[in-house]
């Protein structure tokens, strides 16, 4: 019995509340639940139902962690490749940023100390001074391209996630 912490005029209501009967679910309630307990039906684990990402089990347990999807890495890599490809193509088409030049410039910039001397020599012999000058001029474009790629990737991913979340909520 709970302690009496309400006004006298609420006593009869409190008494009635305590007398409210429990209601029963259908007879096959337990069977329906048991049929969907993964541990009791291990064969189904090969095709697990994705658990809700919003499980809140703070009190009785630690935060529920949604199992990682097996295809997560592959799917992520594929998405990243497609995203980079699209952005690179868009950059080339709309801003005339030459991807090949950008990559070569980035490589040259990254290993500048080593490649600088070698590149100058080899480049001068193989590519010729005009090509070298072209590659060096592309360095700024490469930085811009990398920044664009990074912003595009993160922004695109965030937008997709947000859209999916909204769609999921609306569908639910």
């Amino acid at each position: 019995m709970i302690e009496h912490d309400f006004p006298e005029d609420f006593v009869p209501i409190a008494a009635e509340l305590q007398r409210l009967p429990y209601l029963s679910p259908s007879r096959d309630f337990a069977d329906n639940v048991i049929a969907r307990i993964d541990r009791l039906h291990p064969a189904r684990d090969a095709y697990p139902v994705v658990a809700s990402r919003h499980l809140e089990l703070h009190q009785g347990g630690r935060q529920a962690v949604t199992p990682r999807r097996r295809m997560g890495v592959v799917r992520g890599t594929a998405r990243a490749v497609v995203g980079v490809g699209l952005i690179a193509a868009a950059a080339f088409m709309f801003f005339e940023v030459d991807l090949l030049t950008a990559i070569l410039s980035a490589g040259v910039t990254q290993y500048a100390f080593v490649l600088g001397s070698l590149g100058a020599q080899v480049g001068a012999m193989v590519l010729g001074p005009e090509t070298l000058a072209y590659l060096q001029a592309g360095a700024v474009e490469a930085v811009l391209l990398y920044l664009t790629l990074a912003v595009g990737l993160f922004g695109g991913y965030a937008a997709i996630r947000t859209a999916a979340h909204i769609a999921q909520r609306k569908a639910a």
Partner: protein
Amino acid sequence: MPPKSYTDVSDQQVVVFAQEGREDAYRELIKRYERPVFSLIYRMVRDNETAEDLAQETFIKVLNNIDRYRPEFKFSSWLFKIANNITIDHLRRRHVDTISIEGSPDAVTAERARATAVTITSGGESPLEELESRELGAEIEKAIAKLRPEYRACIILRHVEDYSYDEIAEIVKLPLGTVKTYIHRARQELREYLGDLR
């Protein structure tokens, strides 16, 4: 060694057997709490089918995550917490703040609305007492249905399930002061709704 009967076994011990994968332990937990959980959910959504679905969802979530249960907490509190979360989420999805006493918002036909309108029965008293009790019980059900879902959960957990304020705060994931306020306001509203009957 699992017992032949779980009658005198505590919830925590039954959970341990369930964590070992014993189906009878799962069934025992369902048997112990299907009616309280279903009743709480039903009184919040006022539709039999919806309540059944949400109660099933509650048990499936809890039992599929039984390994995450921490024995320092009451199993029933954990269960009610999940039930409350699932029900509140459902009500928010359906944009239902209050429930009509004439029938559930999930009812799509007049017949269904009549079927989900509040009716309550009770027993063990003289015909007159039973009639009065049934009338008051039905009115209380109607009055509960008029409360905000948050108030409903708090007042049911307090007065039907006998939980302390602290436990209710943990279950509904609200500050203790908010829970006390909700219960206070729920009592006030119930007094107003039921004023003529007392």
